[in-house]
């Protein structure tokens, strides 16, 4: 058995880690969060120049033929830096839907822009009533001549404000929660009938509520076969889970290490608080939670690279369960051990905590994935 990385993977990992350490200081990140765009266009160009936006796309599509392990390595480091650039939304979710479901023409049309950084994208899949059920859709796409007309409402569309292109799930047949009859469409974000309400999220990102009112699209906007979009959507979301889970693992590592460091310097009763056994044990438990999450991250990445199917889905759900529980534990204890400073905006700790909290909710919480894990 071999958990080593290839030389190329190690280079990639080192490259991202170096960027986070040297060019992504926490204070700079906070300025980006408060900026109009919400992230740095310069950083996005750098990502493109370094090839990071194309790592996980096939060479035939202009990418570098990487897979889940590469994504894992990158996102783990993004988590360490609390990166706000919309890699998840553009590359992993919307890009993933195009990668898994798009035909050659659609890939040729959209992927080069994503890979060279000129196109921002978003996946509009969630709806207010649906919670984590990807098939629970009230948005409809009705046949209209040679094309379709979309009507409906999509909730919390990550990177919605910056997106040039939206990949939208809509029902073309069946009842509200049927697995059959779900279709995906690639829609220009500026198309007539698309309106957005933009807002910041708790964890420093941007999202939109998107209303679709008689949005007319051509037949070539349909991604994959009509009514069979759910499988593509599930795969893109599972890619997303691996990525946010990897981010969470990176967040947990920072929280653990920063907490240990803080406890070695903060003094009470004439000695560093890290000398107290009860605090040492909490940090031991934080370390253990991080290591368990990291282990399931490796397993999920390997399963995804082996081929997408029930084994991969099960590994991804196990990982998400672990990350949800461990993230909560590590985040809460990091805040507790930092005392009042833990929740202030000035200190990074609270921001990692917020990100971990949101990651637990994204794409299904612990309860949702426990059930999925048990059923698979």
């Amino acid at each position: 058995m071999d958990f080593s990385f290839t030389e190329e993977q190690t280079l990639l990992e080192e490259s991202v880690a170096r960027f986070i350490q040297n060019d992504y200081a926490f204070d700079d990140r906070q300025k980006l969060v408060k900026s109009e765009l919400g992230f740095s266009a310069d950083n996005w160009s750098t990502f493109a120049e370094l090839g990071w936006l194309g790592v996980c796309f096939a060479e035939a599509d202009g990418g570098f033929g990487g897979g889940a392990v590469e994504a894992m390595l990158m996102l783990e480091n993004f988590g360490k830096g609390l990166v706000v650039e919309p890699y998840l939304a553009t590359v992993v979710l919307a890009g993933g839907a195009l990668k898994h479901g798009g035909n050659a023409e659609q890939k040729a049309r959209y992927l080069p822009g994503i890979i060279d950084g000129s196109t921002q994208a978003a996946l509009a899949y969630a709806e207010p009533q649906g919670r984590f059920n990807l098939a629970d859709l009230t948005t409809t796409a009705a046949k209209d001549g040679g094309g379709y007309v979309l009507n409906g409402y999509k909730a919390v569309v990550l990177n919605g404000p910056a997106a040039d292109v939206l990949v939208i799930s809509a029902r073309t047949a069946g009842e509200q929660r049927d697995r059959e009859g779900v279709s995906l469409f690639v829609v220009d974000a500026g198309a007539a009938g698309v309106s957005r309400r933009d807002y910041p999220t708790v964890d420093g990102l941007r999202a939109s509520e998107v209303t679709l009112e008689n949005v007319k699209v051509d037949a070539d906007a349909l991604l994959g076969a009509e009514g069979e979009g759910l499988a593509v959507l599930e795969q893109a979301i599972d890619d997303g889970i691996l990525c946010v889970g990897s981010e969470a693992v990176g967040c947990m590592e920072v929280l653990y290490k920063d907490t240990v460091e803080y406890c070695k310097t903060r003094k009470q009763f004439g000695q560093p608080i890290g000398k107290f056994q009860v605090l040492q044990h909490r940090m031991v438990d934080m370390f253990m939670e991080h290591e368990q999450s990291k282990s399931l991250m490796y397993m999920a990445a390997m399963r995804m690279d082996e081929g997408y199917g029930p084994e991969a889905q099960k590994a991804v759900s196990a990982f998400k369960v672990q990350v949800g529980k461990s993230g909560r534990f590590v985040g809460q204890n990091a805040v507790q051990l930092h005392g009042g400073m833990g929740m202030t905006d000035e200190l990074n700790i609270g921001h990692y905590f917020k990100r971990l909290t949101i990651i637990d909710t994204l794409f299904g919480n612990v309860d949702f994935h426990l059930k999925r894990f048990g059923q698979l």
Partner: protein
Amino acid sequence: MPLYLRPKFKTHYGAWVSADFPISRLDPAVKLLLPPAEQRFAADVETFIRRHWQPQLATAARLSRWQQALVEQGWSVPGWPQQHGGTGWSATRKYLWQRACIRHRVPLLPDPGATVVAPLLFDADNSTAAEWLDAIRTLRSRWCVGFLEAEAGAEAAQFVTQADVQANGSLELNGRKIGVRGAAQADWLCCLARVGEPLAAPCWLAVHLHSPGVSRDKDTVTLNGVQLPAEHLLAPAAAQHALEVLLCSEGRLLQQSAWLQGQLDMLLEVTAGLSEEPGLQRGLTELGVAVEALRVMELRYAHAVEQGGELPFPAQTLALRGEQIFTQLGDLQMQSFGYYALPYPDGLLSHNEMPIGSPGLAEAVQQAMMLKTGSMYEEFATTLTQVRDQLADRLKIN
């Protein structure tokens, strides 16, 4: 622009080579990661177990044939160094062996002789030690381990069992050990006692259980003026350290998830119809995730050991996590028994009478009760608190 050419770990994804054992029936967690030579080894192990472990036989005959086959094959003590009769297997092979045994519900080791006693004897340079080792390797002797004492806490410093050095160099041993697992069936006791000065660090001593002055009552062994030759002093080094080493031995740590998975599978079968207890079902699913995480941690650890590189985490991480999950398992097992968690029949009488509830249930209840409490102390004179202390020390967070 940099090129990233290899999308996967450097793993070996070849098919499992075995006509007799289709891939679907083999351990899914490790088949993912086996190079061809290990695949062949895994197939050999499967063949060996299927040939020699015969569940249809009565218990005594089944064990006897199995042990004979192990000795003949040279696989009776796979964890030992090769010069003492061990197999010389890599960490991966030991892991595969353990997982296969547990999956087939084959007993891994007959008693603590191979795990606790033998490592104390490897460096000894006398014929008695060599004889003991040979008897353990060929499964001709059974050992039990005694360190718990009624008045002692978690610290070995509290132990009072004492061996006085006689004028001729022999030893006289006095004391009482409680909670000695397997005392009734064993031939030898590996006993923790102070030698010479009352405040000396405890050492390990070998005591033949048929010696004058030894009496046994279930799991209590009383030592009253027992005379021991000098060579029965096994390890002058600090015994508590030896327990720590044992606690964190690869052989023990790398089999935890396999054992847990076996228990979990049985529990899932037993509780399949209990839809009115959703908490229990949820607990089992959570346990499944926890065992899976532990399994990958074991794989990561074994890989690092094999590579001779830096360990991903201290061994205590596995020890602590394993123990936590054992406790979780014990809770769920007790829940699953329902009313049949109550009977506490006499173990000896049960051999002659019909079991209460289903066969094996009484033993399962006792095991679950022990797991619920955390069995680490009984086996290693160590508590979870102490393991956390050790881990804090290794992680340099203190």
